[in-house]
Structure formats: C-alpha cells, structure tokens
C-alpha cells in the first residue's frame, strides 16, 4: 500500500495557482523529499494532504484515507511537524504531552514508558517541566518531534524540518528520520536545501511555481537532465530552467562587486 498518493491536486489563492496539478506517491518505507524554492507550493501541498486546506480539485490520500473526507483519521495516522513552530508557550512539555496523549487516546502506561525512552534518547529530562517559552529553538524542535512521534505514526510529514536547526539538532533529526524508516515507516518532507534531499532521501520530487517538474531517484533525475554525475543543484537549476537566469544574475553581481 502506498503511504501517500496525491492525484492532480490544484489549489489557487485568487489569481495565483499555488499548486498546479500535482501528482505524486510516497511508498511505504521510503523517504521522499519535496524540493523547491521558497513559494513553490510545498507547504500548500502538505496542508492539503493533512486536510488543513481544501483543494480546488484533485485528491490526496494517506494510506487510502481521503484527506478531505476524513481529515481526523488522516491525523490519526500521521505524525506532522509543520513549518512554523507555534507551541503552547505557557505550557510545560509535560502538560503538552499529557494533552496530546489524551487527545490521541494513548494508553497511559505504555505511553509513559515510551516517553521515558524519548526523553532519555533526546537528553530532554531537565526541560520536561520548564515552560515551553523558555526553551531554546533546538529544544522546542525536540518537543515538536516527540509530539509528532508519540503515537508511533507510520508516516511522518516534516515541513522544512532543517531550516532552523543547528548542527547537533539537525543530526538528531536526521537520525530520527532514518530510524523511523528502518522500522518500516515512511517520510514525506519538504525542503529547499539541496544537501538534505541529496544525502537523506530515497526519492525527490522537484516542485516549482506549483508544478511538479520532475520526480525520481537522484540517478533518474540525472539522466532526465542529461547530466552524468551532476549534483542535485545543477539538475535542479536545469530542470527549473533557471540556469541561464542564474548565470546572468551572477555575471551582473560579479560586475557590481568588482570595483
């Protein structure tokens, strides 16, 4: 069974077509990266998949559950880390996790045991009773991650998970993603950072101005762009037809910086 199947998804905001006829699949057990510049439509796609936005047309399914028809069930299946981090500032992680476990109807004993493991693994014990507002960005991210992983979802959806992390936290995040897939889980993440997609992901979908312009493993993308051994950056620029634009911009810049 496919973890995510998105078919001909369209969403416009006024005149702007933010997501334009996107179709993609995330298979079970794989890490899929939605790669694209800022404003490409990654977050909008993910929000429709989570049932937070209604698509104009097309459909999105998680393990066969339709996101528009049954968003609550979709959220039951998914662990979601959104792009912006708005946690409950004046709660402590303890209170937040109590809340989440209650909403998800997780059995108390089992979840306490699991929480102990998480807290130990992430070195989080001394922050467990501090107000979230006082936590550092990395610790907030950990809070968010525990919140998303608490119910052992089969699918993780991470929207720009590395954008605000320092080296250490980013490493932890990558490890978590890997462990999650080793246990048979799937991951859909969005990113505008090449290295992330290149090093971590099984398959990449390149999205630009709302359109999915290419999809596949790194090798498949190389052959599509006729570039043997190329890195993702040049593939990306070729496929988004920005190569000339960028080159032009660079030469202008070079002049500007020359004297």
């Amino acid at each position, binding site marked *: 069974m496919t973890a995510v199947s998105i078919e001909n998804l369209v969403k416009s905001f006024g005149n702007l077509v933010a997501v334009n006829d996107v179709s993609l699949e995330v298979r079970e057990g794989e890490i899929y990266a939605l790669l694209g510049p800022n404003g490409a439509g990654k977050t909008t796609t993910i929000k429709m998949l989570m049932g937070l936005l209604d698509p104009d047309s097309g459909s999105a399914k998680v393990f066969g559950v339709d996101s528009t028809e049954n968003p*609550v069930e979709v959220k039951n299946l998914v662990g979601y880390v959104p792009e912006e981090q708005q946690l409950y500032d*004046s709660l402590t992680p303890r209170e937040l996790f*109590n809340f*989440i476990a209650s*909403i998800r*109807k997780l059995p108390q004993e089992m979840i306490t045991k699991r929480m102990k493991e998480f807290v130990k693994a992430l070195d989080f014990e*001394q922050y467990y*009773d501090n107000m979230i507002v006082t936590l550092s960005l990395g610790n907030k991210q950990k809070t968010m991650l525990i919140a998303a992983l608490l119910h052992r979802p089969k699918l993780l959806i991470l929207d720009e998970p590395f954008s605000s992390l320092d080296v250490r936290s980013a490493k932890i995040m990558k490890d978590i993603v890997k462990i999650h897939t080793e246990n048979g889980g799937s991951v859909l993440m969005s990113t505008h950072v090449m290295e992330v997609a290149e090093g971590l992901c099984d398959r990449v979908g390149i999205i630009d101005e709302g359109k999915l312009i290419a999809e596949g493993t790194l090798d498949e993308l190389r052959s599509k762009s006729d570039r043997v051994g190329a890195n993702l950056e040049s593939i990306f620029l070729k496929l988004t037809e920005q190569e000339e634009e960028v080159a032009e911009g660079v030469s202008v810049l070079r002049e500007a910086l020359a004297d």
Partner: protein
Amino acid sequence: MNRSESWRAAGVVAQEVRFQSFLEANPANLARVKENPEKISKALKSQSRMSIFFSSMILIMLAVLALVASAFDPDFANPEATLAVGFAVYLTLSFVVIFFLNLTTTSGLFTSGAMSLPSILPLTRVELEQLNFMTFVRIFIAPVLLSLIIFPVGCLLIFGPIVAMIALVACASTVSVAIGALIKVSKWFHKKTHQTDESRASAFIRVAASLGIVIGMISIYSIGSYLPDLIRFIISLSSTAGEGFFTILALIFPFSFGFLAASIPYSTVVPLETFLASIAGTAFYAGIALLSFKRSGESLRAITLGGISTSSPGLLKEVEVETRTPLMGMIRKDLQLATRNIGSAFIFAVPIFLVVMLYPMIQYWGEGPMRSITALTALEYANLFGGISLVSVLMFDTQGASIHEGLPVSSKLILRSKTVIMMVPYAFSMIALDVVFLLNAPISAWILLMPIIQIPCGYVLGMTVGAAVFKIRGGGRAVAVNVTNDQAIGIVAGAVAAGVGIVPLVGYGLAMMATGSHIISITVQGLALLLMVLLARFQIPNLLKD
C-alpha cells in the same frame, strides 16, 4: 552605609523586585526579555507607574465616596451608623486594594533572590536589615502613604481632629494587617510555585491576583453609585437585627474603628455599650496590627539572611504521561493556559463584573418591587457577556497552532470543550443574578426561578457563538481567534449571543403579556430553552467541518 545611601540602594533592589515579579506574572514576558530587554524594562516602568496611578485613584475615590456617603447622605435616619459603616467599608476596600494590587509585586520579593541580592555586599547585619526595610518601604510607599494621608485628612476636614486621629490609627492598622497578609500569602505562594510537585496553588494565586486587578478596575467605574448602596444595605441588614447588633458589630474589625469614630460627633446617639465595645475592639485590633508590623519585619529579615526553603528545585520530577478522555484533556489544557495568563482570567471575573454592573442599574430601573422586565433585561446582559466569554476561551488556542494542526481532533470536540468551560462562569453568573434579584425584592418569587432555568442557555450560547465564529473565521473548521487584533469577532460573538439568548426571554415576555401568569411564562421560557438545547446538541455540529 548611611541612610541616604541605603535609601538609594533600596531603590535598586526594589526595581529588581518589580522586574522579577513582572516576569513572574506573565510567562510570555520571559520570552521577550531575551530578545528585547529594553522594551521589557520600558513596559515595566510604565506598568509600575500605571499601578501607582491606579492604586492612588482607587484609594482617593474610595475615600472621597466613603466620606461623602457617610457625612452627607441626607435620607438616612441613623447618622452614627452611616459614619461607622462608611468608615468600615472604606477600611475593608482599602485592605482589598492594597492586598490585590500589590500581590504580584510582593511575590517578586521572594523570587530568584532579588531580596538576597544585597546580602552578597559587604554590609553588616544591621545595615542589611535597614536596607531591607527601606526596600520594602520603597515598594509599598505609594499606596501606604496615600492610605495614611487621604482618609485621615478628609476626616479632619469634615469631623475634626479627634476623628482624624482615629482614622489615622485605623488606616495604619489596616495597612499593617494588609501588608502582613501580603507577605504571608506571597511567601506561601513562592513556596508553592517553586516546589517541584504542585503548581495548583500558583494557578489559584495568579487567578486571584488577576481577579483583584479586574475588581480594582471595576470599582473605579461603578463604585460611585455602588458605595452608598452598600453602606445602606449593611445598615438595613443590621438594623433589622436589632439595636444590640451595632454593639456586636463594634467588636468586629473594621467596624470597631468606625463606631469609635462615630462616637465623637454623635456622642449623644451612640449607646454607651456600643462605645465601650468599639474602644475594646479598636485597642485589640491596633494591638494585632502592631504585632503584625513586628512580624513582617522579622519575616523580611529571615528572607534576606536565610532565604525561603523550597524543596530543592534541582530535583527532577519523574517523567510520566497522564491521560484523560479527549474532552477532559482538552479542558485541562485550556484551564492550565487560562491560569497562566492574567488576561484570560477575565472570564472567571465575568460573574462579578455582571453583578457589580447590574446591581446599581437594577436599583435605578424602578421604584418599588422588582418586575419581570428588569429580570429579563439583566438576563439579556448576561447573555451578551456569555458570548464574549466564549470568545475569550477561543483565545487560548492562538498559541498552539502547530500542535493543533497535527492532532486528530474534530471541530465538534473543540466546540464542546470550549462550551463546557464557558458554561461555568455563565452558571455562576445566573446564581449571582439570582442573589441580586433576591436582594431587590422581586414582585413574585417565581422571578427567582428565571436565572436558574436560564442556566442551560450557557450550552446553547457556547455552541451557537462558537459555531458562528468557526463558520466566519474558519469556514466551519475550528479556529482560534484573538480579540485584541480582531475586535470584529468580539462584536459578532456578542451579537449572536444576545440574539440567540433573547429567544427564551422573549418567550417569557410574550407569555407574560398574554396571560399575566408567572408560572405559564416560566414554563414557556423553559420549553423554549429545552428546544434550543436539543437543536444546539443535534443540529449545530452539522455546520462544522473537520
């Protein structure tokens, strides 16, 4: 260290104490202080100026009104009781004002060692104690001085020097007791909040402190018409209990001071035993106040030199997860959020707000017994407040969008949890209104049933107002709204609540006009509500979307 150096140093410590308490009072400040310390200290300065201004305004108004009411209230027959009760009411209210307006500041006395700051300096014990005392004086100087000056001076002008002296003793005693109570409560508060196990008490104090501020504000607006009524009310209650009752009152704080003061200008009217009782009472309470003053000094000394022992804050609590049903989990989370934010405490103050606002209004609406139309109007006001309190509950979730987006919660569950929370102050409002009705001698005892029957309307209001907000702002999905930057939604909420909540009241009114029978009218009101509850229960969830 001489006195003036000590005084200046005390200013620094006092500033730090204010800063700590400001941070403690609102957790969100903790975040901002990292990013923008100047802004925070500016906000703090303006806030402490505001709080001095408010304390002064409130105390001045209370003093002027109490004096005016007790000296120039022409239509009352017991002038001595009027003066005594006016005196006592002033003392009580000034106690409340001093206590609550300074609660957050005082708790700062004990936080993060602001007071032990000087103990690292090369000072002798005596110098330290002096510094301590001055810090304390600097923190409370404004309300204390005001309280010691305004009322006695007023008494001097109206009743002469002897009454003024009594007033001074009375005010000094009240201040001393209030500050003693403040220190005790703050110490206990500090202990509770910094023990690693329980934080329930701290939530309670935060709510109480916020309520104190809200009540302070309300007094400013409404005490003008309220104070004379309060005095009259206490006197009429007492005189129905018989003449001897005044003598008993004279033994009780703060009436002792009042009756002693009243014995001077009205020596011919006040019975001897009341006079003697008031002297005994005054001596007793002045003694207690003196004791409390000494105790406060000792407490303060203990803080600087010993600190307050809380169970070691380094001790980590065991990691565990406590689950509830989804609905209860949601409500628990909302209450935790509510008690940590001074602003959200407004919702708990709604019943008080209503009573303070409506009581004088009801008095002015009509001569003679209270009629149904007065009750209907009061209940409609409560509906309006109900709508607004629901929107304040919706404000709690503006913080946690990222968490909410990933959670499998149906909009219906969210709506139900917000409604349950909002129903509590609504039910209290109804009970409070019932008491107000009772005090205003309703034309028929059946009127007392109206608020009780209206209680389930809280459910209807919560569900409809919530659904309307979700529909307008979220297209049917549950949303959080923030009234501070979206006032329109507050107005919508008030309008929807007023429009929906008026239906059973109109039913009552029409039935009353048609039949003139209270029983039939109440039945109509009840039936209308029953129908609305059923509609809200089964139809409104269909308007929502997940």
